[in-house]
């Protein structure tokens, strides 16, 4: 998230990437493990850098040629350093005649395709207050950040929604994997037993309800109200606009730095149109266990 607000908000970096490079964004937890053409190409590049495949994360910014020759690495989000790396890569770059790598058979363990006949719903989240005042630009970025993810809806759930019904499976998925504070990094999801209460009804196209999520120890939780509007035409959902707003508390191992105590937090849902490349990104909750997410 910080990268979006720092490195990739710098006009010099943006201009370079738009004009001189082919930019690609990936969750390397997939590619570093994938036993297929996509994975092997990534692993070839990463293994020429300082972070080797098989020794934990290989996250960072890489530059490489189309035949996989390594041209640079950086894991610092300072725009000046990234810009220097990009310029150096351009100096070292020699165009090569190389064929496109055939896709071949993908590693099924890491294939993430939205359910056929289902829906992709954009999910955004924001901490609405509670942070201590700061002049630190990095902290400010966290404090102002918008969490992003996608919710996948199965065909049967889609059909039920279009018919005015909210299936229990969709309700559970929405609560467990999408009512999370993902504004500062990868957050923990909720376990099924951490849904203390989720009373929600869909009547006359209006979704209304309350939710209470809380860990057994009580160190993290969310109590909120929900309001939304669902519209459909010819058996297809044409609107899914929902807001959940309430008080959140706590954080996870990789999402530290939450406001102290309880703080106001909201999550919004809206149908994806397919016009944003991020609409293709699989839900964070499906990472590692798609069946557990989509069941």
């Amino acid at each position, binding site marked *: 998230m910080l*990268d979006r607000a720092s490195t990739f908000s*710098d006009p010099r970096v943006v201009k370079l990437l738009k004009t001189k490079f082919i930019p690609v964004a990936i969750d390397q937890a997939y590619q570093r493990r994938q036993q297929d053409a996509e994975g092997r190409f990534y692993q070839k590049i990463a293994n020429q850098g300082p972070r080797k495949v098989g020794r934990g994360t290989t996250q960072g910014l890489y530059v490489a040629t189309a035949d996989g020759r390594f041209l640079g690495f950086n894991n610092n989000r300072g725009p000046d350093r990234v810009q220097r790396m990009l310029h150096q890569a351009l100096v070292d770059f020699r165009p090569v005649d190389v064929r496109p790598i055939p896709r071949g058979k993908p590693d099924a363990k890491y294939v993430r395709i939205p359910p056929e006949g289902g829906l992709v719903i954009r999910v955004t989240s924001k901490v609405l207050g509670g942070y201590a005042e700061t002049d630190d630009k990095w902290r400010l970025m966290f404090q102002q950040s918008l969490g992003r993810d996608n919710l996948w809806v199965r065909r049967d759930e889609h059909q039920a929604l279009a018919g005015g019904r909210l299936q229990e499976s969709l309700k559970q998925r929405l609560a467990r994997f999408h009512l999370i504070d993902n504004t500062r990094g990868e957050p923990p999801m909720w376990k099924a037993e951490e849904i203390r209460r989720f009373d929600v009804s869909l009547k006359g196209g209006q979704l209304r309800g309350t939710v209470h999520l809380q860990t057994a120890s009580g160190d993290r939780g969310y109590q909120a*109200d929900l309001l939304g509007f669902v519209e459909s035409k010819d058996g297809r959902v044409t609107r899914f606009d929902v807001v959940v*707003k309430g008080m959140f508390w706590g954080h996870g191992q990789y999402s530290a730095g939450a406001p102290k105590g309880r703080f106001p937090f909201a999550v919004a849902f809206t149908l994806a149109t397919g016009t944003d490349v991020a609409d293709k990104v*699989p839900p964070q909750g499906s990472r590692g266990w798609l069946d557990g997410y989509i069941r």
Partner: protein
Amino acid sequence: MKLMLLVFAVFAAESLPVSEFRTLHRQLQPRQDEAWRTIPWKVSLLEAQRAAAREKKPIFVWAMDGHPLGCT
């Protein structure tokens, strides 16, 4: 009866009003003009390789834990 009305009023006040729903829903939409969103990101390395071979450009890989365009 008064008690029932009071209870109803308290619960009604706690739920999310439509006006607040509209404000929040708008507030939580990503801005179209955010600089990082203007970059023509691909989400497949093989697609990037194909484009790099065709356009004779180097590939820039933004590789994160969690998807950089999604939940990180």
